[in-house]
């Protein structure tokens, strides 16, 4: 995956995660934001609004989340990189339009700063209960790309990566953050020497079909001169509705799957810590991976060979890396601020015991709790 810093660090600053995400979006080329404020994501909207006002771009506070994602989809079809930010309840409202975005292959970025749900829940407290909503929230077969930052630095880096992936694959791409990382302030370096990927806007080739079974078609914008038809109904390669043709529907749904799932290696990105000689390993993302990192250090100090596998890209799921790890370690520990959503997925890929460590009290998991749990399950 692209969007890795390559050189020349700039002076570091102490910045909030949500603000860093807004800075990353602007540097990735985002010039349109439509949204509706919701804790704990609102600072993304505020900062993006400031940047677009100062430096040029369009910012709209919409009447709700449904209108927000609709505006983002429309903006994307004018050729502009577009984004919104929300939290669990707002994300739910956006799901119907997101289905439309998948099926019309509309690049967009959505940052979901997770709070303790379901429903209004605890608006100012942390949760990780949207990791299945991002995967399966839409109706129909959809194959999203979802990135999980664990630091302020990654709120910046992965927002840029999300735009690149979305433009490259023409698929809605998500930064699934959490309240802890979104509101955390820490050292960050705002690199500006990233590679930036821009969608292929050429009119050469149909906008909704490709000869390759996993191909990404070009995407001309309204105003570029192409005769564009964009529909959420099943369509052929030129965009004409084909709602009775079984072959067209099968081919389209299959290609949309394959353009994400055939590229798991290219899209995927995991971080490994102390895994070379590990006998037990954590699999964790977001703030819970910070808990696990501290727990690994404390366990190592006690002589326990622990390690951490951390997906920066949670969807498509890092099955190859997890399978390889499952063949090496004695057991796997999956700490999450939900009732075991990703632990269940892990069990599909490994045969060693998978221990779910779950907490839904609006607080991050303490490293001490993880250490004690591992010691109780040797």
């Amino acid at each position, binding site marked *: 995956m692209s969007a890795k810093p390559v050189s020349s660090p700039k002076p570091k600053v*102490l910045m909030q995660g949500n603000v860093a995400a807004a800075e990353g979006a602007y540097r990735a080329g985002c010039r349109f934001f439509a949204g509706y404020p919701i804790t704990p994501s609102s600072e993304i909207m505020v900062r993006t609004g400031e940047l677009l006002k100062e430096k040029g771009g369009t910012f709209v506070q919409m009447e709700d989340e449904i209108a927000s994602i609709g505006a983002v989809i429309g903006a994307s079809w004018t050729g502009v990189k577009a984004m919104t930010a929300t939290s669990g309840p707002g994300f739910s409202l956006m799901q119907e339009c997101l289905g439309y975005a998948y099926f019309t292959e509309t690049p967009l970025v959505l940052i979901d700063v997770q709070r303790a749900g379901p429903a209004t829940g605890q608006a*100012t407290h942390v949760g990780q209960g949207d990791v299945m909503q991002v995967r399966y929230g839409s109706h129909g077969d959809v194959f999203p790309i979802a990135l999980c930052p664990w630091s302020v630095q990654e709120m910046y880096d992965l927002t840029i990566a999300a735009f690149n992936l979305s433009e490259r694959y023409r698929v809605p791409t998500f930064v699934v953050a959490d309240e802890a990382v979104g*509101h955390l*302030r*820490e*050292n960050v370096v705002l690199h500006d020497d990233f590679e930036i990927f821009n969608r292929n806007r050429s009119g050469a080739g149909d906008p909704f079909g490709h000869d390759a079974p996993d191909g990404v078609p070009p995407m001309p914008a309204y105003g570029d001169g192409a005769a564009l038809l964009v529909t959420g109904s099943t369509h052929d390669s030129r965009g004409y509705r084909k709602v009775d043709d079984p072959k067209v529907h099968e081919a389209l749904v299959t290609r949309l799957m394959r353009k994400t799932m055939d590229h798991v290696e290219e899209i995927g990105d995991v971080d490994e810590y102390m895994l070379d000689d590990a006998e037990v390993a954590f699999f964790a993302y977001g703030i819970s991976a*910070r*808990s696990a*990192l501290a727990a690994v250090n404390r366990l190592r100090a006690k002589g326990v060979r622990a390690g951490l596998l951390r997906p920066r890209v949670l969807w498509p799921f890092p099955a190859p890396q997890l399978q390889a790890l499952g063949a090496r370690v004695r057991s796997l520990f999956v700490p999450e601020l939900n009732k075991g959503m990703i632990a269940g997925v892990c069990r599909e890929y490994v045969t060693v015991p998978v221990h779910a460590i779950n907490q839904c009290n609006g607080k991050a998991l303490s490293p*001490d709790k993880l250490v004690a749990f591992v010691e109780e399950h040797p």
Partner: protein
Amino acid sequence: MSMHEIRICGLGGQGVIMAGMIVGKAAAIFEDRYATLVQSFGPEARGSECSAQVMVADEPIAFPYLRHTDLFVALSQGAYEKFIHEMKEGATLVYESDLVTVDERLPKGAKKFGIPGTRIAEEQLGRRIAFNMVVVGFIAAVSSVVQVEAIIKAVADSVPPGTEAFNMKAFNMGFEYGKNLLS
């Protein structure tokens, strides 16, 4: 590695997060160390409990939530009640002496420094909003977590343009109050 764990807690509107940000910025930017700042707050904009956790270290910080405080800044009685148990032995308590009553729960060997910061801000500066800068100045005087010069730079870097002189005046009042307590 050397790690300092700091909690600043009070009521929404007292400038708790800004105070935490100045301490964090002083360490992260002006001392070139690592800092994390976590804020927690209720759904209300003002009046609910508001807490900042600041970690300062020479290495990157894995987990940004503290276990035991080296420095606890209690700006309301509710804050004191909720977090006094977190203090390490020999840690430092800074408190708003008009608002907080310190009792026997203060751990062994702990140092305590009280300042009537709200009164100072109101009576000597005419503006209660300066309260948090008075407290930051006081922290700089009585605690050695971050160097005074770094905190002063962080204050100047954090307050709205045009208010630097006023805020530094508030800072100095808290700082002098602390120095007088120590001498």
